[in-house]
């Protein structure tokens, strides 16, 4: 029946799966592509120690740039907010990709910079592993790497 209706196998209704189509604008669609396992793991395993050791931060940035296919800061998230596993009283942490302090941990009730504060509730929700905060949008990443456009 499938072949009879939307016969050709290359017919695709899902805009998420159209990355290979030549008409798709890569710079809009790439933001929403599924995140790689490597990326998910490096974000999940981040701690102050791994970032401060020799080449720790450089290695990390290489993986980030590889994930987003660019080294341009404007195309990278301003920061990545996720649950903090240091435990109470810490709630969330920000991986600041443009600021000076790389990893900042926030206690319950402690306010974050306004651009990150709007991602706080989402980062604390168990359905989202990572919240990427850009200057003009927020992208939520689930544990399987799939993305959700928030704004």
């Amino acid at each position, binding site marked *: *029946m*499938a072949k*009879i*209706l*939307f*016969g*050709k196998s290359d*017919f695709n*209704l*899902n*805009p*998420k799966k*159209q990355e290979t*189509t030549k*008409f*798709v*604008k890569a710079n*809009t*669609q790439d933001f929403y592509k599924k995140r790689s396992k490597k990326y998910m793991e490096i974000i999940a395993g981040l701690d102050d120690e791994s970032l401060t050791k020799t080449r720790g931060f450089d290695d990390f940035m290489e993986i980030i740039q590889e994930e987003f296919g660019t080294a341009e800061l404007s195309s990278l998230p301003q920061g990545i907010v996720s649950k903090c596993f240091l435990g109470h009283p810490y709630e969330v942490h920000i991986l600041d990709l443009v600021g000076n302090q790389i990893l900042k941990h926030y206690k319950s009730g402690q306010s974050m910079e306004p651009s990150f504060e*709007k*991602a706080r*509730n*989402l980062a*604390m*929700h168990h*359905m*989202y592993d990572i919240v990427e905060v850009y200057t003009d949008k927020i992208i*939520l990443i689930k544990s399987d790497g799939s993305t*959700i*456009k*928030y704004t």
Partner: protein
Amino acid sequence: MSNQQIISVADLSFINKALRDINVDLSAVQSGLGTLNYKQEQIESELLQLANTFQKFVDEDTKHKALQLAETRIGNLKQELNTKYGYYAEVRRMATGILQAVDTGTVSNDTLKFTTEEVMIKAPGYWLAPALVAISSWIRNDKDFANRAIDESLKRDDYKTTLFFMLVMRRLKRNDASFKWLERYFMHQNPKNLDREFIIVLEAIATGIFHPNSRSLMMSNVKKWLDQLTQSDNFIDEQKTQWNKYFKASKPTSEEMYPLLEQFAENWDKLDISLREVRTHEILYHHFNKIISLSENSKSTIVQLDEILSLLVTKFDDEELPLQEKVRLQELIIEKDGDKKSAQEMVDAERFIFEEEVDFLQLLTNACFNPELAGATTATQALAVSISQPWIVEAHETFTAKIRNETPPSFKINIEGFNAISKNGDNEKELLKKQAIYYDNITKKKIEENGFPIGATIIGGLLCLLGGWLCIDNLIIGVAVLAIGIVLIWVNLNNLSKARNNIRENIQERHTKAKEVLRGCLAEAVDYRGEHATEDKKAEKLDELLNAITPEDFSSISRDTSRNII
């Protein structure tokens, strides 16, 4: 000496009495003030309750009146529709009537000719009238007359006439002619600017009533358009925005399940909206489940073609749209029990249904939101949902994330000025302790306000001194003055103690009540979070349901094809 003694005793007794009287009065005033304060607080609390009850009554009354008004208005609007466009109804019924009469061979050519030509006169400017004349001329083999009538019909409404003859030819099993009409129809179509009646083509796909050739033409165009419109984000983003509005407008009304939080949580408005929105997942689950479960159809091709013809001739007369839109608003006000705001939200979400020209993706969205108003059946609704599935899922994910982000992280409770913040209602012990300190402080403050009666005590003290001094001269007078002084001090201290006890008792009573309210609020907070989490999980269930939908499940294959295969 004796005169002096008599006068002195009389004077002292008078002063003594006067002082006692003053003290009694002062005590009464103090006690009265305490009672007054207490009563004032009680009145304030009762007034607040009364104001809340009154506001609820006003809200209910407003809804009730809106409901009554909507019921009256809907009748008037339908009457207006009938008066203005009622004459179309006769012509519309005639379309399928003529075809069924031809099927059974029960109507003479003369009757057909007379009736259809009469319609031409009765419905000037209406596209269907010459179309019917064309059919009757064609039946009696009057080619010239038929051509002239078709020309006129095409002039009045090209697209509707084309679709009409495509359907009629298919009904008469003249598949080649039907195909040619269809080809003609597609030649003029622009997926970014389609007439509303295009939905008829989707209906034909959903019901599988077309010959394989025609069906293949429809499918290739639909596929091409989908590819074209989904290349960039613009069209899809517009649909996602509308789905988001639709999801928001689908939220249920408040159920008043958390009365204490409603009264004492300062952020109740946000908490209430979040709860209503999270309850939407369940409603949406049933909505979509119903759509995809209703797609079975077992009607014959002729019956379905007649239904589609009826849809074409009844649902797409644009001049009726403004009135139809007004009718819809009144229907929604009735559906939402007089809640005009919720009804307006849904009308805003559905507003493109009443647009004369829309893009293809919008047409799909219209069919998903309200197939009846969009001019289709539930079969097309299921097909439209299945095609729109990718952006419905994305819109729902965004909608869910927005609810999660906008759910207040804590309950901001205010009981008699005591502010309590609780994340999940699980910090009762800590808050009760803080509340006790709060009331202790109030007690201290009130006691301080009700200060020590220094003046009266000094007078009493001075009288005691005077009494002591007088004892040297005159023992009786001295003792009497001393006694007055002591009584004065004692009465004042006694009054002070009574007033302070009064304050303690009053505040203790308030504290006890407030403690119960706080416990109740926290218990409700625990229930609220529990319900919220349960409803939140349903979002995943709905996503699973939506992700399992595929267009193939809702587009019947061409019945001719299936017969060929069999």
